[in-house]
Structure formats: C-alpha cells, structure tokens
C-alpha cells in the first residue's frame, strides 16, 4: 500500500512524456520501474509491454498490469488514473482553447516542430525495448518478418504475434 504514492508520481510523470505515442515514454518507464523502484525486472517489463500490444484500446494499458502487480486492483486503478488524468485534463483545456488559437502563427510551428521530435522519441523507445527483446538471430528473424509483413503488406499484427509466440516456444527452449 505504501507503494501507491510512488506509483502515482511515476505514472503521472510518464504520461507527460508520451508525445507522439506511448513508446516515447519507454526509456523512462524502464528506468523508473526497473532501475529505481524495482517493481518489475527488465524481461518482465518487456513481456508485459509485448502482451499489451495485443490488448485493444489505448496501447499503453500494460501500465495497469504493473499497478496490479505492485498493489493489486487498487494499484491498477491508481496507475491508470495517474497515467491518463494529467494529460487528459491538459487535452481538455487545450481542446477548448484551440478554437481561439486558430490564428496564432506559432500553432503551426509547434505542430510542425514536435513532429520529428516525437518520431525520434518513438525510435529511441524501440531501441530501448530491443535491447531486452533481441537476444540472438532467432529474435532478429522474428522481428524482421513481423517488420516486413506490417510495413510492406500492412498485415494485421495480432496473428503475427500469435505466430511468434508459437515460434518462440520452440526457438527459445
């Protein structure tokens, strides 16, 4: 129970980093949950993140799993609220102001400037997760096949991930 306050602090901070997508916060998510608070170890975090990619809805719902793990159902609720409320309130506010900002010339500059930075954050997030998930030629092969199938053929990733689980059960024994 005494973990609830750190959970709130960590996940409301992380939510402010998710510019461009949840992946942008992954390096900091790893640092805070694994290295600082020891709520999960790195393989567990990567497993939860990967399972979370299969869940529907906003793609960072894996945070609820960390909350559940650390402090039970209350933890799951607290983490989810901490993760969605700060940015949610900001969005609500800016959404209402946006109409008035229509003629503000810096609006386009902010949108245009943050675009490439958010792509950089996403790619840095991918690198962080790859450090734990890519361990040898088997995992490189799985990642490459999924990468190619999604980029070139726009295949739905769910069957691919299920297939990777089966391949993994044989390849990583």
């Amino acid at each position: 129970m005494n973990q609830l306050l750190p959970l709130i602090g960590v996940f409301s901070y992380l939510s402010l980093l998710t510019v461009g997508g949840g992946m942008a916060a992954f390096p900091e998510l790893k640092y805070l949950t694994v290295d600082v608070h020891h709520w999960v170890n790195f393989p567990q975090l990567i497993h939860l993140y990967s399972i979370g990619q299969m869940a529907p809805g906003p793609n960072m719902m894996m945070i609820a799993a960390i909350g559940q793990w650390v402090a039970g159902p209350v933890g799951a609720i607290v983490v989810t609220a901490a993760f969605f409320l700060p940015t949610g309130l900001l969005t609500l506010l800016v959404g209402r102001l946006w109409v008035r900002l229509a003629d503000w010339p810096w609006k386009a500059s902010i949108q245009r400037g943050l675009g490439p930075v958010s792509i950089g954050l996403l790619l840095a997030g991918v690198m962080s997760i790859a450090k734990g998930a890519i361990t040898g030629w088997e995992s490189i092969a799985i990642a490459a096949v999924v990468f190619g199938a999604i980029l070139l053929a726009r295949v739905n990733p769910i069957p691919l991930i299920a297939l990777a689980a089966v391949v993994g059960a044989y390849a990583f024994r």
Partner: protein
Amino acid sequence: MSDITAGEGAPATAQDAPPSILAIFLAFLSIGATSFGGGVVAYLRSALVGRHRWVDDETFIELLSICQSLPGLNASNMAILVGDRLRGTSGAAAALVGICLPGGLMMVAAAIAYGAAHSQGNVVDGMLHGVSAAAVGMVLAVSLQLGFKTLKNYADLVFVALTIIGVEVFHLSVLVVLAGVGALAIFWYRPGGASKDGALFAGTLRFLDGTAARLSRSKGKDKTGKDKKTGGHP
C-alpha cells in the same frame, strides 16, 4: 456504414441531438473492446465519423492534430476531445473510461495469469520471448510508417537524430530532450522561418502503398475496410 461515405452529407453535429452519456460510454467501450492490432485511431474514425456521425471528417482530423502535438496517447486524447464536444466534461470522462476499460481489464487479467504461469517454466518464457521479438518488429514498422509521413525535410532527420542521441547515448531524461530538441525544432519552423513543406519520403510512401496494394490484391481477402491513413499510431 463505411468511413468512405463519412465525409459527405451532413453529419449530425453536437448541437443537433447530443447523445446521452450512456451512449457515449457504450460507443467508446465497444471501440475499446474491439480495436485489436493497434491503429485505434482508424477504429475511432470509422465509428465516430462513419457509424455514429458524431463528428465530421474535417473535425476529426483537426482534433487528431491537437492530440498529436500534446502529451498523452492519441486514442485516449481523441476520446476526451470528442466526448467533450458531445457532452462537455462528463462526456469526456465517459469516453475516456469507456475506451480504457476493456484493455485495462485484459491487462490486469494478463498480469495475474503471467504471475501464475511464470513459475511453471520455460515454455511460457519462450512464447513471451517470441512475442517480445515480434513486438519490436511491430513498433519499429509502425514508427517508420508514421515517420515517413511526418518527416518532410533533411532538417527533420537532424531533429530525429538529436532526439535519439540525447535519449539513447547521453541517457538524458525524455523531458529534457523534449524541451531542448523540441524548442530547437519549433524555433526552426517558427513563423517566417524554414519552410514546413517537403517531400523527403514521398517516393517511399508511394512504394509502400504499391506493395501493400499488390499484396492485398493477390491475397484477395483483406477487406477490413479500415482506413490505414489515420491508423497505425503507436
């Protein structure tokens, strides 16, 4: 109702007949329960613009652009903005809870199952290792798809590189990198500054559109009808 027709006609506006809080909650709950495979934004668009006609396509794109320059996930931010337009703060809250609830419950169940299964040995470990490797391929593909659309000039590549170097090489806090490189990039594209247009990856996008079209034609059964243009956001 497919989203191809959604931009035409006169979609009901929020002022016309605002849906009830319950209707908003249920609509977002069903999106939150069915949007498997990433690209929640595409599901949102076909439901909100197409099926329910709660916002028109132009408004949807405008709201999406607000989400993309703010922290927070696109899916949850879109739920908040559309919910707010329909029914104010309580509409926004109903939409947010609705879209998060199914995935959240599934992840709580997954956490419990993972804790139980993990002690049983290495088959589960192997499966999760495979899933993790697949997830790397998936998030890289989705990030690049988005990148090819977002990055338009060589300067953008510099900002991407600076961001990655800051986070991965110097291990700076994401917040510091966001503030530093973000400010630099915003200043670069300041009013009257560098041109915001460019076509750096136009050829790449055409090529990928082509391969996807050819492969889905030859497969002949990919008729999900989802608009991938607004989807695929990680």
